[in-house]
């Protein structure tokens, strides 16, 4: 499958399960997106575990000027507070619109499980067609003798446990945003 078709499929399948997908050009655009989204939703508190210091600093600045709070890790102490989390994800699985995220760090888990909104950043070069194409990478993680916690995330949290009616955001994030970043090396 050609690169453009793969991106197209990823977008379609992710949108199909309720993920809000955008193509953007760089990380600073993602930072702005997260803050704007937070403002639009009238939310206050952000987290960004796993981002490097430079990006964290620019998010911190933007939060400050926008009257928002960027939580410091460890997040366990502020578990009730998280509104929006901005994190990287490791791979995209186009066939199902899924995101693969190594969540060994407790903060990554807290951020992506407890937030109302999860904004995920994925370099376009890391989109794969299906689970077969990430099997080797995942297996390598699992066969390493250290502990690991790896997630495939597909859309927001959902349930149909009452009268089989689909409801979004039962325990996990109510919204999942996927930002596909163009100008990045894999």
């Amino acid at each position, binding site marked *: 499958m050609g690169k453009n078709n793969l991106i197209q499929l990823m977008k379609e399948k992710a949108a199909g399960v309720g993920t809000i997908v955008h193509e953007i050009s760089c990380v600073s655009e993602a930072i702005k997106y997260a803050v704007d989204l937070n403002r639009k939703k009238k939310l206050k508190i952000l987290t960004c575990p796993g981002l490097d210091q430079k990006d964290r600093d620019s998010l911190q600045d933007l939060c400050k000027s926008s009257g928002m709070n960027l939580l410091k890790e460890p997040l366990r102490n502020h578990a009730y507070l998280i509104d929006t989390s901005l994190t990287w994800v490791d791979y995209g699985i186009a066939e199902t619109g899924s995101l693969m995220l190594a969540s060994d760090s407790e903060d990554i888990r807290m951020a992506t499980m407890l937030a109302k909104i999860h904004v995920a950043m994925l370099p376009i070069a890391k989109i794969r067609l299906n*689970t077969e194409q990430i099997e080797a990478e995942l297996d390598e993680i699992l066969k390493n003798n250290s502990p690991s916690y790896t997630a495939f995330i597909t859309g927001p*949290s959902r349930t*149909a446990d009452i009268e089989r009616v689909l409801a979004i955001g039962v325990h996990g994030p109510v919204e999942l945003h996927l930002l596909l970043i163009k100008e990045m090396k894999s």
Partner: protein
Amino acid sequence: MIKTAQDMKSYKKQIQQALADSFLRSALDEFNTVYRENRPNVYKDIDFNSLRDAIAENKDSLIPFLEILFEEFKSNAQKAGAIVHRARDARQANEIIARIAKENKVKKIIKSKSMTAEETFLNTHLEKQGFIVTETDLGEWIIQLKKEGPSHMVMPAIHLSRYQVGELFEKQTDLKFDSENIDKLVKVARHELRPKFLEADMGISGANFAIADSGTLGLVTNEGNMRLTTTLPRVHVALVGFDKLLADLGSALRILKLLPRNATGQAITSYVTWIKGANQSLNTLSGKKIMHVVFLDNGRLSLSKDSVFSTSLRCIRCGACANVCPIYSKVGGHKYGHVYIGAIGLILTLFFHGKDNDRAIVKNCINCQACKEVCPVAIDLPHLIKKTYARVIKEDGKTPVKNLILSKLMKNRKLFHFALRAAYLAQQPLSRGKSMIRHLPFFMDKNHGFRSLPVIAKTPLRDIWQSLGPELKNPSLKIALFAGCAIDFIYPGQGEDLLKLMKKANIQVDFPMDQTCCGLPAMMSAQEKTAKELAIQNIQAFEAKPYDYILTLCASCASHLTHNYKKIFKEDKESGQKIKLFTDKIIDFSSFMDKVYTFPQTHENIETKVSYHAPCHLCRGLHVTNEPRALIQKAGYTYVPAKDEEVCCGFGGSYSIDFPEISSEILKKKLDNVEASGADILVTDCPGCVMQLSGGMDKRQSPIKVIHLVELLAQKK
């Protein structure tokens, strides 16, 4: 808590209660239809059959080696800091988990959904020990508040309406809710349960996969509560059945392609999580979680060595066998299983929860094959249910009188046929010369009154056969008719119509007189020996001449002769070739007319509208689906599709006598759908279905005529 009926009398009472629950009935009926209608769309991108077979084969190759896989898992998981246990039975598993809780000074426990924990009644055990246990899966939380067991493996609270859920939530929170709004109810759970996650000392989960070569657990979920359960508390215990062990990640990823699709119609669930060892936790001094995995045997290891039942360990708990089951859709899961529900539940209950809990429910299978068709791991569920029934009878040490009489009678063809002839005379005062009995005598249970009953023919087909002049001079083909009891003794006219059609094409039809009942009723009542004796009698009856085909007008006979005869003689290598010679010649009427007879396309257009009912044993048993519909159209009739054409009519032979209250409900939906199609005639190609459908139409005094396809085609000049 769970109260499964242990005898038929109390089971019947429970069934009546379930049938009176109008919410349950409409919810499950709708679910049954929607699930089937969605399937083609869910599977449009992948090949269900080949994936299913690959998974089944893979599972079969692992089942004999579960203990070796366990050791491999243990060694790998322990390298990453997990502690791995094995529990012989439910009690031991519960004790191990309670001990872990005590050792770690746990007070509050949260749980994500685990059927294995339901199996061991873990909550009851932990609560007795003074722990506070909260279920966090929405459906599980609801039934925990209701103090019930799950009524479905994937949707545990599917039997409850939003209003019932709202009431439970109001009681729990002392707040008022707008129960109409499901979204708001869901948010109640989010709001109420969030603090429980944060306060809990220990989280208990199940697992869908235990991958041996890395010591990893795989969990397939939607709500996100499992992720919180395995992350927030300091201790995580996973309770896993031995049957969840897989060799490698590839095997798990393959199952992952079918499990969500088959369970909920999703290509993948919201969360699939791979957990290995003791992960980071900033809630402990060591900075690592306290991680335990408890593997539960509880009969699985002995099942893995059972030549008949080991395939039941292939089950991946998708719940689809309930979704498509016409009986489940009428009575719901609480009356259709013990802890595990649906077809697989009727089987596993015996092995996990004992014969007393299976005694009544195991009889409640109509053998329609719907579950077998959707099973993602190709378990022959209807067959195993009958095998389970036989084992329950054996363990009980006494065969029900009805089954014994049936067995005795059927073994002796002459006696059996004598009884059928005698039945004709006995029916005369009731039928008053008509072809149907509309009003049952007062001594019969009024539940049987949902359909008019057919009258036994005055002269069976076998007695008039020679007088019909079946011999031809130079026939182009010689076939034999396997009449089956219904054609022979109730509908000989359908046999006459067949002969008429065949003569027209210069095909000679023989009626070997030593043939007897195919044996399906014996198999249905778990009389395996009788079924085998009948098979031998029939094979001998057809041995005399080298027929080109053995044709039958009965879909149930055709499917039983084709598939079950091979199963009956599976162990018997000597008869193998003989059986194959016989079964290879069996052909159903529609296939014969379409492929061998090549029934001609007529050019006239008949305005009469014809709807079709697909007999279970034809469309699923023999995968004959297009032929009968094509034949209706070739004969010039206007075919009008009805909804749910391939759903059972509710007959199932003796099923409709054992469970008339359920049979009549299945029939009702079927007839409503046919009436809605606007048909003038309802055609099917099984005399059993004709009996049920025409009996029902007659009772509701519908103008729609029900006939066998052979009658429709023989009407043509």
